[in-house]
């Protein structure tokens, strides 16, 4: 019997039991929809976060922080503490000189002194992280990308009182209300807890530049909520030559260069520092998301399993109802294999229709969820997500349906249907014609 004829015979059998086939298909639809929705939402979320990070990260930079641990010590030093990783080791401002001399692949480096301060003008006061950086070096690393003035100017050789602020501190809501402006004087207040008695240190700076909007999370690089002061000022004002991190600019972003330089720096400091590349950060985030996705998909897969059992159940009922028909087919000379294929064909049709509808439903669901999440974001096309993360309010999640998910969902839907149909189909094929014909 020709494959086409087998398939059309399967289809005619399904058409006869529309309601039953429909309900069976619904099980597959729900399972696949859950999987597709969860995958495309988490993929969209990952893209959003990754994009935001990539905006703040340059791929040709490394971040050196004190302490052996990875990733979690990125913000060491907040709260005026010495010591990053527990061993008492600290990075010093002049460690940049050591790092710069390590390899021709290193183009430069910048040390960052970081403190939480009160940042206030006559109207407002915020607690904010202030970063003391060498403006010239910092601009050399991030100048082409994120350390760019929207208004005012960033002097490469700044006076001590110059302050550069992130865009959010200037214009957080895009509605005309401005917080801090270029030319404005601001008080920067730091509580020196090591002095006896503890006392507040204050100096008055002048905002000389507002950065253009970056729109991402900050990881080492400039951020929308950052305040930047010259490193010399930070050093004398905070009374420290300890820095929380050193950003290293590489000649290129090859993985080999990243690996070599990372190892050089780690060895130079006898393993007391962690060197993180942006690609490593991204891959950590990627693997975290993989675990989350696997977990969610696992849960969704349970519903598909239930659907599979439903298929099996319905196929066994159908097999019993059609015992006589199978007898007739066999008496007409149909091979056992063909009977098997007819039953499997029915499950393929159910799986295919269920998977296609499930993908459509899941995709719709993902978009609805995304809109709810981001409070009215635009619908996006398949493979979209390029503009994710430039919004200012909330998380703009753009669900992503990758070809892998698409094909995977289709395959999974059909696969589950077929696997659960194997037993009923096998039983049908094994029926003896004489007994099947006698069946009432």
């Amino acid at each position, binding site marked *: 019997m020709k494959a086409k004829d087998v398939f059309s015979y399967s289809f005619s059998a399904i058409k006869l039991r529309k309601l039953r086939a429909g309900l069976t298909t619904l099980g597959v639809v729900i399972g696949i929809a859950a999987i597709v929705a969860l995958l495309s939402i988490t993929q969209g979320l990952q893209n959003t976060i990754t994009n935001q990070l990539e905006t703040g990260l340059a791929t040709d930079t490394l971040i050196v922080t004190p302490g052996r641990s990875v990733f979690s010590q990125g913000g060491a030093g907040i709260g005026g503490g010495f010591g990053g990783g527990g061993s008492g080791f600290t990075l010093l401002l002049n460690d940049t000189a050591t790092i710069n001399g390590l390899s021709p692949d290193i183009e430069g480096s910048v040390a960052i002194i970081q403190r939480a301060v009160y940042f206030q003008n006559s109207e407002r006061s915020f607690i904010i992280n202030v970063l003391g950086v060498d403006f010239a070096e910092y601009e050399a690393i991030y100048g082409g990308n994120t350390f760019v003035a929207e208004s005012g100017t960033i002097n490469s050789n700044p006076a001590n009182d110059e302050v550069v602020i992130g865009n959010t501190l200037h214009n957080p809501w895009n509605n005309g209300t401005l917080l801090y402006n270029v030319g404005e004087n601001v008080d920067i207040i730091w509580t020196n807890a090591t002095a006896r008695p503890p006392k507040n240190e204050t100096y008055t700076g002048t905002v000389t530049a507002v950065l253009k909007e970056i729109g991402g999370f900050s990881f080492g690089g400039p951020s929308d909520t950052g305040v930047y002061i010259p490193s010399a000022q930070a050093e004398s004002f905070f009374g420290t030559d300890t820095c929380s991190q050193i950003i290293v600019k590489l000649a290129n972003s090859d993985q080999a260069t990243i690996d070599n330089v990372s190892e050089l720096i780690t060895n130079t400091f006898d393993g007391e520092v962690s060197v993180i590349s942006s690609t490593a950060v991204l891959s950590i985030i990627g693997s975290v998301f993989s675990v989350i996705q696997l977990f969610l998909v696992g849960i969704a897969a349970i519903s598909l399993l239930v659907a599979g059992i439903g298929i099996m159940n319905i196929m066994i009922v159908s097999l019993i109802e059609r015992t006589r028909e199978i007898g007739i*087919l066999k008496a*007409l*000379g149909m091979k*056992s294999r063909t009977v098997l294929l007819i039953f499997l064909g029915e499950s393929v049709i159910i799986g295919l229709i269920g998977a296609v509808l499930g993908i459509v439903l899941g995709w719709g669901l993902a978009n609805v969820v995304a809109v709810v999440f981001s409070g009215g974001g635009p619908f996006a096309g398949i493979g979209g997500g390029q503009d994710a993360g430039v919004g200012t309010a909330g998380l703009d999640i753009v669900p992503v349906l990758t070809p892998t998910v698409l094909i995977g969902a289709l395959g999974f839907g059909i696969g589950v249907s077929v696997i659960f149909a194997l037993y009923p189909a096998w039983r049908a094929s094994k029926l003896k014609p004489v007994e099947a014909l006698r069946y009432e």
Partner: protein
Amino acid sequence: MAQIVEAVDLKKTYMLGKIPVEALRGVNLKVESGDLLAILGPSGSGKSTLLNLIGALDKPTSGTLLIDGVDVSTLSDNQLSDLRRRVGFVFQFFNLIPRLNARDNVELSLSIAGVSKAERKKRAEELLETVGLKDRINHKPAELSGGQQQRVAIARALANNPRFLLMDEPTGNIDSKTAREIMRLVKGLNAEKGVTIIMVTHDQHLAREAKRTVQMFDGVITSDVANGEPT
């Protein structure tokens, strides 16, 4: 004439629950091409069992059954399926597929044999015309009378140009007038197209119209007469 069925000491034992039932207890039979054979006997005499064996629907317990010179007990499941395509089976309860119309029922037999769509359609319509159902081609079994359904079943059985036609009580479920019409059709097929026919019946009148009558009782053949004369 070529011999197409030869049974030698054919035995078949069923298990009815745990009790063995000897349905055939040593049947010897030869059927030649062009024959029109009626097998008569009371129910339980083994005539349907014999027919099922000849139709390759079942395998004998012992003895030899040659169909077209091939010993069926040596055949695999797949080979038995192939053999069934060369046998036309007509059942007492028609056994048409209810959701398919007359033409599709006839086509099914052809499609199992792998005949292409266009040829199937043409052949199915020709066959339905032969059995006198040209104007009922698109009717489903439920829309046809018993006699008409049996004609569809005959058309289906003839679809693959079988070596012979096996009919199990073909008129058992239809009125006597229609039964005579069916019998006329069967005789016509035998006489004009040379189709070999083996028919099981318990209707003496019908059996008398055959060229040869085989009487069965209790799993064995008790008489075998041609045109009323003993062989």
